[in-house]
């Protein structure tokens, strides 16, 4: 049984000195109990406390940061095997592999600029190329520097320790990740990473080999370690990934308490899917196309959403199709799933419409209404603030069926001759609603 927060609290000095960064010892103890803090942050912890806390004094999986500044990627610090147990906290970094062979410096730069420009907004998140993994080759040091200059975190897919040094050393302050080639003798890489003070990927032929390699890297002075799991196919890879996470959480070996690094070569889309769902923290992906990246980003968004904090849409008015001032104006809440379902159905109906998304703290319509987050005043205010009221000339608002109890108060709050029509409860009935209710009404 892990210690509860109260049990840990009793081991702390109870001085509320705030040196750990928390206002009270209890708040700190709760974070420790959750595996989200390290006892090292408490300078006054007694040796007895350290002994009693034992393994629980540090998070089961260390955090590692690659890169610096706004785009720096921090991974690790996970505390659960299943996302529903709490949540997965650190979104894996998706690195795009750049092989400088055959590219001029200018072409490299153009490519990097193009990647830098990738910015796709989806449900409150912006998808970007998180980092660049440079293949060791002529021109790699220049490419790495160019990437680092642009703010990209860099991973070095090394072939030799010397090559790795020549790429990583000039940008060592940007904390590049060094990834040795498969089967390489590790000692030279340990020395390099330790000397540069940068994170390093370690590998092993099997789990035991991996864990001892990580332990050896630690002893050799490498501060930040990522594990590259053994596995030639999805089955053995899945085994390794599951065993590493479970071993880390159960603290069976300190060598397993590090985030995981994974490469997905050309066409290895399935491997990347497995990596994102099963605990990989940094993925170096060879394919560059949107058809690979968009599903992977989206999968990551799904898997790394806090199960207790639903994804939220930005409140506003979203045009579906090419609506004009005579198109229907619909309202829904900012729970992303609600938005997606409603927008999909409206688009499928073939009727162009304005969809006003109202802030309801990310709750679905029915839940939001039950929780009192969907009052007439609140909705009316939001519709005015977002300019939804100015999008149409007909002064008619369609609200979801489950929001019907507020129809009257909403009409009052809207004023100005606005009419509130109650739409269907289920989004799947929107198309018939347009056909049977909206169209005849507009015809009149």
């Amino acid at each position, binding site marked *: 049984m892990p210690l509860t927060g109260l049990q840990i609290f009793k081991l702390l000095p109870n001085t*509320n000195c705030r040196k750990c960064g928390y206002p009270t010892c209890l708040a700190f103890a709760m974070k420790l109990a*959750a595996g989200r803090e390290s006892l090292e942050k408490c300078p006054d912890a007694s040796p007895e406390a350290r002994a009693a806390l034992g393994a629980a004094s540090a998070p089961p999986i260390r955090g590692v940061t690659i890169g610096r500044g706004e785009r720096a990627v921090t991974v690790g610090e996970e505390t659960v095997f299943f996302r529903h147990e709490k949540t997965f906290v650190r979104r894996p970094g998706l690195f795009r592999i750049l092989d400088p062979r055959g590219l001029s410096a200018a072409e490299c730069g153009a490519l990097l600029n193009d990647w830098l420009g990738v910015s796709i907004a989806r449900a409150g998140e912006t998808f970007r190329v998180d980092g660049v993994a440079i293949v060791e080759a002529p021109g790699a040091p220049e490419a790495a520097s160019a990437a680092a200059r642009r703010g990209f975190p860099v991973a070095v897919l090394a072939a030799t320790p010397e090559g790795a040094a020549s790429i990583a050393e000039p940008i060592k302050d940007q904390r590049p990740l060094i990834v040795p080639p498969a089967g390489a003798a590790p000692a030279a890489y340990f020395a390099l990473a330790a000397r540069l003070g940068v994170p390093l990927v370690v590998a092993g032929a099997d789990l035991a080999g991996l864990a001892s390699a990580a332990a050896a890297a630690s002893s050799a002075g490498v501060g930040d370690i990522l594990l590259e799991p053994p596995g030639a196919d999805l089955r053995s890879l899945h085994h390794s990934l599951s065993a590493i996470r479970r071993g880390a959480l159960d603290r069976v070996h300190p060598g397993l308490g590090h985030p995981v690094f994974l490469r997905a070569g050309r066409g290895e889309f399935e491997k990347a899917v497995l990596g994102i769902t099963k605990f990989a923290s940094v993925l170096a992906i060879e394919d560059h196309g949107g058809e690979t990246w968009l599903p992977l980003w989206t999968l990551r968004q799904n898997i790394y959403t806090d199960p207790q904090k639903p994804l939220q849409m930005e409140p506003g008015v979203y045009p579906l199709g090419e609506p004009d001032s005579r198109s229907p104006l619909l309202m829904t809440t900012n729970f992303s799933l609600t938005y997606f379902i409603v927008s999909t159905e409206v688009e499928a109906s073939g009727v162009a419409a304005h969809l006003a998304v109202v802030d309801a703290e990310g709750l679905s319509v029915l839940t939001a209404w039950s929780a009192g987050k969907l009052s007439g005043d609140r909705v009316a205010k939001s519709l005015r603030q977002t300019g939804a009221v100015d999008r149409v000339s007909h002064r008619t608002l369609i609200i979801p069926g489950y929001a019907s109890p*507020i*129809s009257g108060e909403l009409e009052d709050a809207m004023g100005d001759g606005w009419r509130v029509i109650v739409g269907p409860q289920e989004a799947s009935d929107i198309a018939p609603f347009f056909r049977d209710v909206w169209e005849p009404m507009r015809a009149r």
Partner: protein
Amino acid sequence: MSKIIAAAAIRGAHACVQRAETTLAQAIGRHSRDAAIGFPGTAYALPTILALVGKRVEKLGDLEEAVQVARAWLPSEPTERLWLPYLGAALDAGAATLVAQEAVEALKPLRGEPLAGGFWLGPTPDSILREQGIKLVDGRMPGFAACVGALPDDETAERLARDLQERNILVFMGGACGGETMAAQLNRRGVEMTWETFLVPYGPNTSSIVHALGFACRAAFTFGGLRPGGLKETREILLYNQRRVFAFVLALGELDDEKFATAAGAINFGFPVISDTDIPEILPSGICTYEHVVSNVAHRDMPSRAVEVRGVKIRTVEIPIPVRHGPAFEGERVRREDVAVEFGGKYTRCFEYLTSRPMDQVQDGLIRVAGPEIADVPEGARLPLGIFVEVAGRKLQPEFESILERHIHSFLSEPMGVMHLGQRDTVWLRISKKARDAGFRIEHLGTVLLHKLRNDFPAIVDKVQVTLFTNAEDVERLYPAAAAAYQQRDERMGALTDESVDIFYSCALCQSYAPNHVCIITPERLGLCGAYNWLDGKAAYEINPLGGNLPVRKGDAIDPALGQWKGINDFIRNASNGVFERFSAYSMINDPMTSCGCFECIACVLPGTGGIMIVDREYAGQTPVGMTFSSLAEMTGGGQQTPGFIGIGTLYVLSRKFISGDGGLARLVWTTSRVKQRLGDKLRQRCEEIGKPGLYEKIADETVCTELEPLIEHLAAVEHPALEMGEMI
């Protein structure tokens, strides 16, 4: 069981078996034992015999064995001196009768007597059984009536048939009375009798009604997946019928011994007998759900009485009011200028009062308007209104009155053009001109309530009658009773203690968010979402016994101070999938209850104060423990047991049992001003009850401080009792 009925049934059974044996012997004489026998269009041979005897009869020889089994079941007739027990003997006699009757029916074709002919349809083939039987099993058809005998005249026969048809009840007819049959009566009235019209005449002999029971047996085979076999299988088939096939027997006209024997056979299936003549009644309840035999029922009342006795639930598909209705109209306003008539608000007395009555004192479906109707008053008139709803139900308990009454609001908000606000005696109700012009009258308020109550609460509501008082005199006369009931209900709820009940209710509605979480709701600790109290749990269970709220027997007390019971712990272990062993109802330190995520407030220990703080969901700021609500929620929620932290419903703070195992309300040192305001005077009153009248003022809130150290200073300054109580951990 009545000795007279038992004696008649046993006599009848003897005669039936005798007749079957004779007929069978003749048939065997004329044909061989290998001669094939059976009903057309069925794969279940002779289905009643298959179910009761477990034997597939396909030849005369098989039938001989089956009738021998029936003979062995025959009890001897009760003598003058023997009084008990009759029930078992009569039931055996009934079963033997059904076997004998099916034998007689099956032998008819061999004797050259066709099973069908004229308007008689004869036994039902499997294809129709599957088509119609599905309706019976999925509830589209609420049940079937097996009508034996005849009515006094053709007109009465037609009215009875129509009444049953209106309720979608399938009508089987068989047997005669005084040479007359119900089917012949209907035929003379020109009533169409087919499977499509739900009127199915089997045959003129009493024995033909056995086809109705064969139909029931095959339903159990087909839809219940049951197989024939030995005694155990037979019992399951009978139980299946008792639980799912809502059938009953209407005994029409004088009963002879064979009819009594047949009735006893039907009772085996849980099908009660409703009779129009004066025979001894057999009241609750052993085999049938409620009464077994109810007699002397007027023909007009037979359908409703039968429906009630069998517990048939009839749903209204379309509520008969002249305006559209549904949840979509729930929030609709009727504006001043659109009002046809209005009640309550600040203008007139308007209240709603729902009460429970014994079954025989409610006339189901009766709706009355006492006073002016909508057409009797000028447009925009303001009338007083007393909505008086009387309900009855076999499983209705007076405690559910308030729960049903609370639903009046949503029910009356649903018709288009009706606005309903408030509850109890704060109701404000308007009917729009548009609704009136469409034909909506005050009476229709009753129509809506009648159908919604029956449809939405079929498990507890059997009968509803509504009176709408619209004259001041009646309204004022009824009001004191309503007001007294409101007060009494509040007091009753207040008087309900954890000690006074043996059963708590679980709530697993949140397991979708928090996998291992279970709420245990006690009379003095409501659900942590604040929305569910013990009574709600109780009613929810009655309404849906397979739902998310289950009764949990407390069992032996393990620690009454902490609130631990053996029964609760056993339940928790199971319901949490083995993750939790123990729950304390009254402690947040020792084995506290888990929290899902829906809690209204979080209570958390505050080391250094000897007390606790309570923060509500709406409060976004910092708290003395150094965590905001959202970071506290992260620690507390998700179905974990987190000692020192619990999610609670705000009203729990007022309970006698509020963390009583940890020192109770006197521990409360800090909360948000919103919580203090919401609890207000009631919290002050609780403070007085625990002998700490000044406590309310000593409890700090965010306007005093949001950090620990100033809080400790404040507590010392005001001499908060928690400081004296010692640390909780």
